[in-house]
C-alpha cells in the first residue's frame, strides 16, 4: 500500500510540475505583482542584443550602469541577452504568450505594422513627448509627422538620428586625388589601379557588397528616386533598367577589384581583409569605427594602421542611412508590466533621450542628430576622433541620403537569396539579366498571399 501511495504522489507531482511550468510565466502578471528585488527596487528586465561582442553593446552596457547608479534603490535594469538575428522572433513569442517586456528595441517593420500596432501592444508616448519638448524638437520632421497614428497615438519616440554608411578607405593602399564623394562613380572606378581591392562578401546578407551596389544604384539615372520611393516599403520588381545597369557595373568592379577571398566571405572575413592591409576599400557604417581605433590594434595584422583610414561619402556624394525608413526611434514601450515598471521604463527613456546621453551615444555609434545643437563638450570630443568628425562633417555637407537596398528587399531575399544569386553572378553561372529576373521572381515568391 505504501508503495502505491508513493507512486501516486510521484506521478501526481510530475503532472502538477508540468502544469506549473506551463503556467509560471504569467502568474506574477495576473496578480499584478511588481518585479521587485530584495531591496525593494523595481527591476526592469530588458531582453537585448546590445550585449557582449555586439557593436552597440559597449555604449549600452555603460549606459545601464549609469542608469542603475542614478536610480539605485528605486529602479534597476537587468539585461537578458538575446541573439540579434532572433530578437524579433523572441519578442513575437513573448507577445503571443502575453509576456512582452515593458521595453523592446526597434523591431522589424513587418512585426510593428502587422502585430504591435494593430493589436495595440504599445504604450503611447504622447504624454511623454509633450512633457519633453526638447525630444520633440530633435525628431526628424518627416518621422514626427508619420509617427502619429490615425487614432492620435504615438507608439514610440520618432526617429531623430541619421546614421553614416559610406566608404572606408585605407589611405596606405589608395590615396584619393580628391574627395571621393565629389567624384562620379565612373571617375572613381577609373581611378582604381589593378591592386586596389574591395573587401566584398557573398555569405549571409552579403552586407558590404550590398552597400556598394546601393551606392552604384544611387549613381544611376532614376536610382535615387527608386530608393526614395521604396523607403520603408518592399521592392518586388528588379527588372528596372537602373538596377540592371547598377548590377552590370558592380559585376565589372567585382571582376577587377574584388579581393580573392570575397567569394564565400562573411562579414568578419571582410573586416579582417580590411584590417590586414589586404583590401583598400570597405563599405560599412560608423559602428565599424571602434575596430579602427588603436585600442583594437590587437586585431590588426600585416602592418595595418587604423589611423590611415578615412571615411568618405560614396562617389556622387551618396550616403546610405542605415536607419532610413524606420520612423520610430530605438525603443518601444509596451502595454505590459505594472505601473511601477512603466515608471521605471519612462525614467529609462528620459535618460536615454537626454542630451548628454545622446551625445555620448553618438560618440560611440557615430552618425548625427541633425536638429540638435550640440554641446561644446561634444564638439570638442568629436574633433579628437578623426573618423567620427569626418563622418559628422560629411553628414552635415551636401550629400544625398538614401536607404540601403537590402532594407527594401523582402527579408528572406535580403538575408540569403541575394547572396546566393550574387555567388552565381560572380561565378558567371548567370548573366546580369538573369540575376535581375531571378531577384524579381524570388521577391514575388516571398510576398505574402
Amino acid at each position, binding site marked *: 500500500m505504501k508503495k502505491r501511495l508513493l507512486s501516486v504522489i510521484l506521478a501526481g507531482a510530475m503532472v502538477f510540475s508540468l502544469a506549473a511550468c506551463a503556467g509560471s510565466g504569467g502568474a506574477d502578471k495576473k496578480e499584478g505583482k511588481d518585479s521587485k528585488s530584495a531591496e525593494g527596487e523595481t527591476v526592469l528586465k530588458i531582453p537585448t542584443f546590445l550585449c557582449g561582442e555586439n557593436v552597440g553593446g559597449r555604449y549600452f552596457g555603460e549606459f545601464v550602469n549609469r542608469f542603475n547608479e542614478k536610480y539605485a534603490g528605486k529602479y534597476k535594469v537587468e539585461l537578458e541577452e538575446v541573439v540579434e538575428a532572433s530578437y524579433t522572433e523572441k519578442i513575437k513569442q513573448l507577445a503571443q504568450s502575453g509576456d512582452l517586456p515593458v521595453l523592446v528595441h526597434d523591431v522589424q517593420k513587418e512585426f510593428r505594422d*502587422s502585430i504591435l500596432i494593430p493589436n495595440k501592444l504599445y504604450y503611447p508616448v504622447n504624454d511623454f513627448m509633450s512633457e519633453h519638448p526638447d525630444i520633440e524638437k530633435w525628431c526628424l520632421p518627416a518621422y514626427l509627422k508619420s509617427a502619429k497614428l490615425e487614432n492620435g497615438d504615438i507608439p514610440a519616440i520618432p526617429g531623430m538620428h541619421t546614421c553614416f554608411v559610406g566608404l572606408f578607405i585605407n589611405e596606405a593602399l589608395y590615396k584619393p586625388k580628391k574627395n571621393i564623394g565629389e567624384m562620379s562613380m565612373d571617375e572613381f572606378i577609373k581611378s582604381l589601379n589593378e591592386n586596389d581591392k574591395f573587401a566584398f562578401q557573398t555569405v549571409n546578407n552579403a552586407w558590404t557588397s550590398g552597400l556598394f551596389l546601393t551606392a552604384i544604384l544611387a549613381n544611376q539615372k532614376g536610382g535615387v528616386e527608386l530608393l526614395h520611393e521604396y523607403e520603408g516599403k518592399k521592392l518586388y520588381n528588379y527588372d528596372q533598367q537602373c538596377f540592371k545597369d547598377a548590377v552590370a557595373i558592380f559585376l565589372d568592379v567585382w571582376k577587377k577589384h574584388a579581393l580573392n577571398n570575397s567569394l*564565400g566571405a562573411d562579414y568578419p572575413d571582410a573586416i579582417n581583409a580590411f584590417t590586414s592591409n589586404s583590401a583598400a576599400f570597405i563599405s560599412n557604417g560608423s559602428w565599424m569605427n571602434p575596430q579602427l581605433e588603436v585600442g583594437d590594434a590587437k586585431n590588426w595584422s600585416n602592418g595595418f594602421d587604423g589611423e590611415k583610414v578615412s571615411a568618405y561619402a560614396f562617389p556622387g556624394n551618396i550616403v546610405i542611412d542605415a536607419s532610413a525608413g524606420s520612423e520610430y526611434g530605438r525603443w518601444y514601450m509596451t502595454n505590459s508590466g505594472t505601473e511601477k515598471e512603466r515608471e521605471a521604463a519612462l525614467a529609462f527613456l528620459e535618460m536615454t533621450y537626454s542630451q548628454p546621453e545622446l551625445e555620448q551615444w553618438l560618440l560611440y555609434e557615430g552618425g548625427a542628430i541633425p536638429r540638435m545643437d550640440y554641446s561644446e563638450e561634444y564638439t570638442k570630443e568629436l574633433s579628437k576622433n578623426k573618423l567620427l568628425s569626418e563622418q559628422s562633417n560629411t553628414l552635415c555637407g551636401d550629400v544625398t541620403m538614401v536607404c540601403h537596398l537590402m532594407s527594401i528587399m523582402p527579408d528572406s531575399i535580403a538575408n540569403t537569396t541575394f547572396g546566393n544569386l550574387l555567388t552565381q553572378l560572380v*561565378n558567371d553561372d548567370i548573366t546580369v539579366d538573369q540575376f535581375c529576373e531571378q531577384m524579381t521572381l524570388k521577391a514575388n515568391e516571398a510576398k505574402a*498571399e
Partner: protein
Amino acid sequence: MKSKVFSYTKLERKNWKWIYLFLLPTICIFVLFYMQPIITMIYTSFAKWDGFNAPQFIGFKNYMRIFTNSAAAESVKNLLWWSLIAMTIHVAFGVLVAFVLYHKPRGWKFTRAVFMIPNVISGAAWALIYRFIFNDQIGVLNDIIRRINPDFHVQWFFESPYAFWAVSLTWLFYGVIFTLLVLNDLYAIPAELEEAAKLDGATGWQITKRIHLPLCRIAIGTCVICAVTSRIAMYEAIALTTGGGPGDDTMSLSLLLVNAINDYNYGFANSIGVIMFLLGVIVLFVINKLFRMNESYY
C-alpha cells in the same frame, strides 16, 4: 477457424489504472508539446497567417504555392538525391564499420572511440569546421590538392556543381549511430549459429551474407529510416555553409520553411512543414514494408 480474440489477463485488468496513471505525464507532455503544435501546423497550413493574428482560411493556396515555387522544385530534387546517397553510401559506410568492429581487429576500441567524436560535436560547430576545411585560401583540402596542382582553385561551398557534394560530404561518412545499432544486433546473434555454419564449411563472407546481414535487417531498416528522415529535416549543415546557394543548388525544404517564417508567411511555412511531416511518414511506411520490420528475425 476462429481467430484468437485478444483479451487482457486478470493481472493486467487489475493494474490498468496504474498503467494509465504512470502514462499520464508522458501523455500530457506529448499532447502539450507535440500534438498541439502538429494540429496547429496542419490547420494553419490552410490559412494566411502571420504567426500572431487570427489565421484566415485560404484553402489549398499554400500547397499550390509550393508546387509553383522555383526553389521548392530544386529542394525536392536535392532531397531525392540526398536520400539516395544517405540510403546507400551513408548507411552502408556505418554498417561496414560495424561489421569490421564486430570482428574486433587490432585497435578496434580506439577506432570506435574516434568514430564517435563527430557525434559529440554540435551540427553548427561541425558545419563551421567544414567551412574552413573547404575554404579555397586557407582550407586543408585545397592545400593538399595544390601540392599536386599549384594552380588549383575551387571554393567548394560556393561554386556549382561542387557545393552540392561539399554539403553532402559534411555528413556522408558520419554514421556512428548506424554503427552502434548494427553492432548491437550483431552481438545479439547466438554464437551457436556461427559455429554451426563454420562446421558446415561456410566461409567468412557466406556467414556475413547468409547469417549476419539477414539478422541485422531490422537494425539496418532503422538506420535507413533515420538517414532519410535526417535528410528531410537537414538544416544547419546547409544554412551554416552554403545558405542554400549558389542560386538554389543546395536548397532544402527546411531552408524554404525558415525563409517563409522570415517573410512572416507562417501559413506557407506550415504547409511546407506538413509536406515534410508526410514525407517522413511515407518513408517510415515504405522502409517498414521493404525491410519487413514488423516480422520476426527468424
